[in-house]
């Protein structure tokens, strides 16, 4: 039946065809996004910085002078050595050591790895929850929608940092004591996820409500495409632009939340320190002159978050049709 509806749907659906074309990279290289990226120096710089930080963090076991998880490598004889360019600096401790003889450079590399893994894991998890709930609520509307959005309202009426603190404190308490060290990372991911998914759910829901009324969705419904397939294959790709921006900025937020929780003493334990744990530890020695114990983790954390946020900022402008 050659109805105008199905004709329209083909015209709309073609550009978002999920089939990987042979020249995917070439297509990306000729896209507006890539062009805008090459023209924006701060975005390029941030991307390189971020890639550098991630690569060095994940290759920490290969490049770090010391394995900070192995207590036998620490000796108190090496404690409080200043960075290499200061008086008394020693090889191989480029950035000095802390009060337990732990090499700061190694601690920072391992710590970044912990921070990045927790950040990525919680973004992926909150994306999963937010996208599926947002799609369902937006697509079906009615009762489901009402319940989900009310629940979201309640969560939004509590500041995110408070949710994260409460969830991680309570979850930690609920764990048996022998699992608390091992499970700390998972608890943090859970805490950050629970405080962050509402945002995605809201964006996707709003977008889904708009898309739901469009002809291509109606056509798919007429063809008896199952609701789940419509949501995932047809509507979801059209909501991804704002989601990409939100996910990038949220990655930065997740790293910050993790660092804050660890700084407050309800995050990663000292046995597997993240950047926040290192800062918490170094902060105790702020007045005793060993500034490198706190300054370097702080610098690393800021580099990480600033480069993520600069990228996110650029992405938001580049994908905003109003600013093109």
């Amino acid at each position, binding site marked *: 039946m050659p109805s105008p509806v199905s004709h329209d749907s083909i015209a709309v659906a073609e550009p978002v065809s999920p089939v990987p074309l042979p020249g995917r990279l070439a297509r990306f290289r000729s896209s507006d996004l890539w062009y805008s990226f090459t023209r924006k120096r701060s975005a390029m710089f941030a991307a390189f910085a971020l890639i550098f930080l991630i690569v060095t963090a994940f290759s920490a076991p290969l490049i770090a002078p010391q394995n900070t998880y192995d207590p036998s490598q620490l000796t108190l004889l090496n404690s409080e050595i200043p960075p290499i360019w200061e008086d008394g600096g020693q090889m191989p401790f480029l950035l000095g050591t802390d009060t337990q003889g732990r090499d700061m450079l190694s601690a920072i590399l391992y710590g970044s790895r912990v921070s990045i893994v927790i950040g990525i894991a919680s973004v992926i998890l909150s994306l999963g929850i937010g996208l599926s709930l947002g799609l369902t609520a937006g697509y079906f509307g009615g009762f489901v929608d009402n319940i989900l959005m009310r629940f979201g309202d309640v969560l939004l009426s509590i500041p995110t940092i408070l949710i994260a603190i*409460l969830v991680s*404190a309570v979850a930690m308490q609920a764990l048996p004591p022998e699992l608390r060290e091992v499970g700390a990372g998972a608890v943090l991911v859970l805490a950050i996820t629970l405080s962050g998914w509402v945002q995605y759910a809201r964006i996707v829901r709003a977008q889904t409500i708009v898309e739901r009324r469009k002809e291509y969705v109606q056509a798919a419904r007429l063809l008896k495409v199952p609701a789940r397939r419509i949501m995932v294959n047809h509507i979801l790709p059209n909501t991804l632009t704002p989601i990409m921006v939100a996910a990038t900025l949220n990655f930065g937020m997740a790293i910050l939340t993790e660092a804050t929780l660890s700084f407050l003493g309800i995050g990663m334990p000292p046995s597997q320190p993240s950047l926040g744990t290192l800062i918490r530890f170094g902060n105790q020695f702020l007045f005793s002159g060993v500034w490198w114990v706190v300054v370097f983790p702080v610098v690393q954390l*800021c580099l990480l978050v*600033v480069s993520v946020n600069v990228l996110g900022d650029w992405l938001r402008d580049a994908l905003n049709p109003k600013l093109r």
Partner: protein
Amino acid sequence: MLVFILQRVLNAVMVMLAVALLAFLIFQFAGDPVAQLANEQMSQADRDALRERLGLNDGFVTQYLRFVVNAAQGNFGISYRNGQEVLGLIAARFPATMELVLVATALSLLIGIPLGVLTAIHRGRWFSEALQFTSIIGVSLPSFVVGILLILVFSVILGIMPAFGRGEVVQLGWWSTGLLTPSGRLALVLPAISLSLYQITLIMRLVRAEMMEVMRSDFVKFARARGVPRWRIQYIHALKNCLMPVITMTAMNMGALIAFALITETVFQWPGMGMLFIQAVTFIDIPVMAAYLCIISFIFVALNTIVDITYAVIDPRLRHATR
């Protein structure tokens, strides 16, 4: 109008009931309060009596309702840690936090608005680009990092600012203020700056965006055609039209700022509600945690509701749109 107000208030009450449910659930998850309160020598009979007295044998709904009724009257029970009234503990810490938050809010308005106007007017010049970039850094720096760096520079290296505490305070009735003594004012400077930095960047970005919008509008063109001096247009006519969203955001962010103050308070050992809360978290002192959650959310929800209602009073279009 009355219907609208009632609707908003009802909505706020529903949200608060849900928050109370969350706070109540913490009690359920975080272990047995009898085990926390009882000492070693207590017999099983004593424990059972305590359990009965605390009402832990009642049903879930009964316990929840009792929690809500008590909380609404300001009775959050006694602290597991030192056996004092929770409300009294929080009330004693409340002025410290509020002073910090109010001063930080004032700072963020006083600095954020002029910076926003400047970057909007001189768009493309080097200093406004630099400010814009600095604002990204300001958003990215976690507030505990800002606090640590401020302490490092001004207390450790320069040694001109106190790094912790509130200085001397004066009691005005139940309110203790540090604003009336020199040491109290000095102690407030670093915490207030570190708390307000994030807010400053937010306000600056908001004012910038609004200003750029308003400067394109017809009344600005008309004023320029009439020969009104440029500074007058920018700082009086245009700025006035930007302030509404700024005030809204400031009011709505106040609740978040009170919550965020807990980080600043921890860094600067500021004796406010936030530090009380963090101590409660490390000791799993659940009544204090639950009370803090309820009080912060109440301030948050109340501010939002007031802003909503004020908007409806000022702008009749909203009244009809939502009904």
